């Protein structure tokens, strides 16, 4: 039997209508639960803050999922787009550039402040567009490269952006004396999100932040699902599975790959603006390589290419990062009589997770059916093994 025929057999026909209605009901229930969740907690509670962070990580992870999960291009420099989004927020929504006075669509409080102040709803598309442009720009040179070189080139881009962020407090690229990023001290404070018809967001009341993040996450989930089932999404999956076959079927790989990079980047940029405003600072230390790996670990935990899997992975890892490691696990060593700080284990745990998941369950917690067939194909009883048997 040919490989193609084997693969076709593994792909089951779509679930019956009843299953679809059931999963829609489940999704609606979960969304409702997420929407009313803030009422059970104090409006300024740490739990709501962590939940908001988790929702924003969902946006990041779904953006990267387009590049890595759908199109199969391993991007290790995703932090670059977070940086672009956050800096767009910092530049267009703070008093950082005091010499200019531009105010668009902001309330009375910000009107009185010097600097450039745009409404978040205006900054959001700006950041998305800038990130998308940069994504295509960074993606362009990698088009001809093979998979592992793409990973290294994107990583190098991410590091270059980080370096620029760190060093551009006096002159961009060492040229001139213009302070673009304020280096490690960063741009702070950042304007709070200012939505029409509701009162100004504040750090004391997390609920509006939470709902905004939830809305953003839901929109991105919806776009992700629609993209996956669209012609473009099928083209991505085709080039992921077999680029040569995809090209011979008439898929324009250049355009399709660039679209994957730009769309993924756009989501990263959008989430970046939110984080910038939410944590009230944009500084160079936020944009380290470990962020890219953190988001990658979310996707791999949930399941490459599986939208709901990625949502679960992002929420789970975000909570492990903000709650489980600092709060719960931190007391374990002292209880068993050991003396070390478990919070330091953070990224070691994520590294361990990457290894364990790839070796034991490469398809993730909630696998995408098609990807699972692809990933398990070679391991244990593929065609490669039969050639080896000749020896004995």
């Amino acid at each position, binding site marked *: 039997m040919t490989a193609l025929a084997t693969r076709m057999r593994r792909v089951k026909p779509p679930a019956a209508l009843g299953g679809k209605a059931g999963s829609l009901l489940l999704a609606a229930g979960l969304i409702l639960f997420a929407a009313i969740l803030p009422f059970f907690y104090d409006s300024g509670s740490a739990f709501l803050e962590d939940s908001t962070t988790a929702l924003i990580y969902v946006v990041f992870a779904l953006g990267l999922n387009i590049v890595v999960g759908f199109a199969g291009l391993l991007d*290790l420099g995703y932090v670059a787009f977070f940086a672009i989004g956050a800096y767009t927020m910092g530049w267009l929504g703070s008093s950082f550039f005091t010499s200019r006075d531009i105010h668009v669509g902001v309330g009375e409080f910000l009107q009185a402040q010097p600097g450039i102040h745009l409404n978040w709803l205006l900054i959001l598309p700006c950041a998305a567009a800038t990130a998308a442009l940069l994504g295509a720009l960074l993606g362009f040179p990698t088009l001809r*490269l093979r998979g592992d070189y793409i990973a290294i080139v994107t*990583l190098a881009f991410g590091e270059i952006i980080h370096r620029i962020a760190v060093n551009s407090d006096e002159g961009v690229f060492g040229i001139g004396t213009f302070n673009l990023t304020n280096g490690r001290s960063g741009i702070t404070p950042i304007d709070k999100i200012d939505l029409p018809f509701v009162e100004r967001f504040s750090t004391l009341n997390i609920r509006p932040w939470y709902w905004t993040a939830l809305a953003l996450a839901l929109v991105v989930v919806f776009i992700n699902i629609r993209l996956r089932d669209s012609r473009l999404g099928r083209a991505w999956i085709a080039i992921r599975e077999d680029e040569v076959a995809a090209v011979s079927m008439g898929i324009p790989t250049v355009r399709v790959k660039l679209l994957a990079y730009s769309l993924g980047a756009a989501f990263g940029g959008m989430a970046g603006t939110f984080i910038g405003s939410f944590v009230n600072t944009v500084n160079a230390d936020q944009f380290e390589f470990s962020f890219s790996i953190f988001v990658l670990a979310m996707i*791999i935990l949930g399941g490459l290419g599986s939208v709901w899997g990625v949502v679960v992975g992002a929420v789970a890892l975000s909570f492990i990062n903000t709650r489980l490691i600092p709060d719960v696990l931190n007391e374990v060593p002292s209880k068993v009589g050991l003396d070390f700080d478990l919070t*330091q284990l953070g990224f070691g745990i*994520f590294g361990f997770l990457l290894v364990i998941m*790839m070796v034991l369950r490469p398809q993730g917690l909630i696998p995408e059916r098609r990807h699972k067939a692809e990933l398990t194909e070679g*391991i244990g009883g593929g065609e490669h093994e039969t050639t080896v048997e000749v020896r004995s």
Partner: protein
Amino acid sequence: MRPRGEAVREFISKFGLVVLLLILPVAYGIQDLQTDGDLSRLATNLKDGLSNGAIWALIAVGYTLVYGIIELINFAHGDLFMIGSFVAFGLMGTLGLTVTTGAGGLLVGLLLILVIAMVACGSLNTMIERVAYRPLRNAPRLAPLITAVGFSFILQNVGLLWLGGSHQSVPNLIDSQKVLVTVLGVPISNGDVLAVAVTVPLVALLVSFINRSRIGRAMRATAQDPVAARLMGINVDTTISFTFLAGGLTAGAAGLIYALYQTDVWFFAGFTAGLISFTAAVMGGIGNLKGAVLGGLIIGCIQQISDNRIGTEWTPAIVFAFLVLILVFRPQGLLGEQTREAG
């Protein structure tokens, strides 16, 4: 007659990288001639570059060996080197080596440390291969790369827990900055001599091992075609384990030299060192041992020139920019890659 455009393109693809590499030294050489009247400053830069580059060359050899045989960017290799430098640092304390130790004791102690650091990194690398890469031998190509990234993080965390997050200063056992001789106005220090004295014999040994020995032949056969090698009775798994062992040994040696030369170890040093050395391996042509050494030396020079003239804070960005340019415009490197795809 061929159209002129094609000839230009051919020239760029053949010599573009060489020209690109020569831009910085030539530009600063001319500048030096105009301001100082001689080239001693540039020569000192290049000398520092070569001895620094010797360390990168040792690490790059590890990347290139592994890539040559299983086409995997062993992302954890840089952090393995960091573990090597930590082992060396720890053993200096254990053996009680200080700046006051006599020459004989120092020599014996350092040789002992060299052997232990090499063995430690070698066995660690073999273990990582067994745990993280072997189960994924037939999986899609990105799967082992992701586990490699994972192990890189694990090793970094081990380093963080071991010596903490701050830089640790290593006793300056060999007085690495002390000038030994001055040749043509270029001061050559103890550290330079050490770096070259360890790297050259090690790489020579490795090359002759791969060219002459039975296991070396098995390694080359596996690199060319693992299935055919297996049919010829070569134990492919053992051969790959040996490759990782060899890569780990060089990383351990590099760890000791780095600790002595820079007199500083840090848990995060492996990440940058790994990327720099990978750049070196690609620059020389991945899979190509001589290329890795050449690439390491060149990257060392670029780095020194950038440190000295442009600014230390921009050096990583410049090296990464070189990495991107090479991967995009000349992925086969200077001496040509030796992998299955390249034939």
